[in-house]
């Protein structure tokens, strides 16, 4: 029997196990929407902006480990979703985005709402396709899902002209895919793995540096075994949080620009860095020429381009984390004995000393302004038994969330690391909530970032996605203000938000629930009230505006040279500035 392109599209999605599509219609995709409307297997969540649809698909993907799917129209629909594609590309999120295109006979004529979708998305997708013939549609969709979810995951775009969605073809879904130019390597080279095992046995000051790759690979169990067996401390990247239990004795927390003191010191003084599914980003390496000066480097990554891109690697292993770690553990199981513990005792003594010297700190006065760290800490303590999924926006609040919200398991952490996309948090949380209707999903947001995709509150209310948004409202683009205080002599060029909406009323206007924490003493009660609500909630928490996030390695600085607290001049200034209310615009601007 012949099916229309739109019907083929739906049959393919069903076979890929897609349950939810985040979408916004337009002229050239109407046939697809019309067909979706007449079936029950796939839920369509209508968003208010295509960027929202893209981030929702990302949140869905990160929480489930499966490909997220979004559907947008040509022209402006496509340009709106680009930010989400770029975000997914940087953070290796498996995504399949379908875009509508003008009919094939119109392509290239500057037709109404025409855009070169394939050209626009080329630099920010893993691969993309323009389907010119309905007979190619099914095979192309199969390839798109295959490419998005295998190897190093990433976003794939499938551009479908209007006439292709209307034309008919015989439907057959291929059972398998074979692309001669695409064969990701999963098995690590055995000889290299043996070398790695030997280096691990010999190392006196080893450190595991683990990233998002461990989560994509589902290798947390193997990582735990490796770390416990060898008693090697674990540093996590921002994207790797949750890959290893945050409360585990072997965990040193996050490393990098805003990482913990012990995580960065251990990295710097290590004699063997074991990088697993991490890509030596500049937020982690700092000044490359002085990065880990004493260490040999083992690097396990499925993408050969990640290896030796930024730093020299002594033992490269191209392969999947899970497969490689299994093999590595097998070798180590046969060789590890009590000796390693003794060999590394001085290393652990040193690490514990670092830990005690400079733990993460902040000072919350009893009746003083609310400190953002206090909010994250209490939120963590109040919710950890419920195994929540946590998303963040981008800025200081993101870093505090990374530092104080200790995740126990993978796929609980949704954050934009590579692109650093403000406005990511709320829609990503909604995508995760759409995948897991019964779970607790939190969004730790900034007052600046939340305004970038606020419109999706309508989507959350209509689709009953009871995300709990906690806004750390400092009245500033706080991360920008921090840099201005540290490096631009406190000139707050366009970082003061001047006026923000009344978030409580705004929630109310959307039919969600709005709550405000007026003083630190009310924090627990208000958070508990929010957590007990079964609707989307915004908790507006006005926080101390001048709190800075530490430790901090200035861009291009060295990992062992962290700023640990406000420099003296800044402290002095702020003791006066603290009295300024954010409403007092003139004083703030001249502060």
């Amino acid at each position, binding site marked *: 029997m012949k099916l229309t392109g739109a019907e083929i599209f739906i049959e393919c999605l069903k076979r890929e196990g897609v349950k939810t599509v985040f979408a916004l219609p337009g002229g050239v995709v109407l046939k697809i929407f019309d067909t979706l409307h007449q079936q029950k297997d796939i839920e369509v969540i209508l968003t208010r902006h295509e960027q929202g649809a893209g981030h929702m698909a990302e949140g869905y993907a990160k929480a489930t480990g499966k490909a997220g799917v979004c559907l947008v129209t040509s022209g402006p629909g496509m340009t709106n979703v680009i930010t989400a594609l770029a975000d997914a590309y940087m953070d290796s999120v498996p995504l399949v985005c379908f875009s509508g295109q003008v009919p094939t006979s119109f392509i290239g004529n500057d037709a109404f709402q025409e855009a070169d979708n*394939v*050209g626009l998305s*080329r*630099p920010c997708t*893993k*691969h993309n396709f*323009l389907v010119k013939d309905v007979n190619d549609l099914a095979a192309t969709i199969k390839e798109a899902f295959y*490419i998005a979810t295998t190897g190093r995951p990433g976003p794939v775009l499938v551009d479908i002209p209007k006439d292709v969605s209307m034309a008919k073809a015989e439907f057959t879904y291929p059972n398998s895919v074979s*692309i*001669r*130019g*695409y064969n990701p390597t999963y098995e690590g*080279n055995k*000889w*290299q793995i043996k070398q790695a095992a030997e280096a691990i046995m010999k190392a006196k000051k080893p450190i595991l540096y683990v990233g998002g790759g461990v989560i994509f690979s589902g290798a947390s169990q193997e990582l735990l075994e490796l770390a416990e067996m060898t008693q090697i401390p674990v540093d996590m990247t921002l994207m790797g949080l949750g890959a290893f239990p945050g409360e585990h004795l072997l965990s040193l927390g996050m490393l990098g620009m805003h990482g913990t003191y012990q995580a960065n010191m251990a990295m710097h003084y290590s004699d063997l860095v074991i990088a697993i599914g991490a890509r030596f980003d500049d937020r982690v390496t700092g000044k490359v020429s002085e990065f880990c000066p004493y260490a040999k480097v083992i690097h396990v990554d499925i*993408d*050969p*381009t990640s290896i*030796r*891109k930024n730093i020299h690697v002594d033992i*490269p292993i*191209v392969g999947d984390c899970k497969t490689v770690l299994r093999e590595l553990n097998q070798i180590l199981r046969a060789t590890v004995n009590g000796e390693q513990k003794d060999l590394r005792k001085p290393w652990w003594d040193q690490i514990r000393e670092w830990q005690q010297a400079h733990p993460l700190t902040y000072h919350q006065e009893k009746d003083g302004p609310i400190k953002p760290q206090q909010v994250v800490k209490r939120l963590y303590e109040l919710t950890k038994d419920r195994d929540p999924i946590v998303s963040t926006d981008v800025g200081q609040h993101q870093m505090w969330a990374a530092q104080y919200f200790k995740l126990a398991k993978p796929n609980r952490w949704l954050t934009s690391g590579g692109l650093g996309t403000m406005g990511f948090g709320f829609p990503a949380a909604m995508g995760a909530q759409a995948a897991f209707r019964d779970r607790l999903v939190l969004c730790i947001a900034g007052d600046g970032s939340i305004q970038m995709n606020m419109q999706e509150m309508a989507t959350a209310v209509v689709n009953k996605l009871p995300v709990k948004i906690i806004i750390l409202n400092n009245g500033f683009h706080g991360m920008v203000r921090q840099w201005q205080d540290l490096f631009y002599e406190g000139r707050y060029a366009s970082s003061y938000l001047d006026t923000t909406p009344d978030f409580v009323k705004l929630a109310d206007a959307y039919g969600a629930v709005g709550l405000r924490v007026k003083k630190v003493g009310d924090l627990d009660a208000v958070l508990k009230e929010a957590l007990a609500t079964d609707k989307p909630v915004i908790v507006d928490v006005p926080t101390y505006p001048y709190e800075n996030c530490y430790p901090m390695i200035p861009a291009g600085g060295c990992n062992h040279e962290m700023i640990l607290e406000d420099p003296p001049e800044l402290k002095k200034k702020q003791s006066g500035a603290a009295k300024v209310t954010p409403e007092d615009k003139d004083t703030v601007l001249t502060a």
Partner: protein
Amino acid sequence: MEHIISVTVENKFGVLSRVAGLFSGRGFNIESLSVAPTLDPSMSQMTIVTSGDERIIEQIVKQLNKLIDVIKVVDLNETEFVSRETAIIKVHTKDADRAEALRIVDIFRANVIDSTPSTYTIEVSGDPKKIEAIINLLQPLGIKDLVRTGRVAVAREPVRPVAMQAKKVARD
């Protein structure tokens, strides 16, 4: 250092822009690039002349391999290869110059492929040095037009693609 990279790609629309976009987006050099179909009509062959230090060339090769439409990448500098470039040069020639032009053509084993009362169109192929040399000699006569193909190259013996070699190198 200059490298000649031979890339076998799917013969599909848009592949050239993927490769070109990779070079421009990542700030890699392209000195020349030539593309043409192969014996197998489903594939095309690109020869890319580029330059960079070892780390950059390694990234170029890996990034090319990462493109889904790229089937095989060979860094010809890793092996022995022969390469050629063709230039078509139109020179202004009057009177005595015409004889001089023909002498140069003869020395360089070039061919005159078109002739008008005031011009010769000369075809020459060889390595870049030879082409530079003939251009230098013809310049005083007055070059009206010059087009060059960019280099094409082929390994003397069959070689394995770089992705597989990289693994071997890593083992050594």
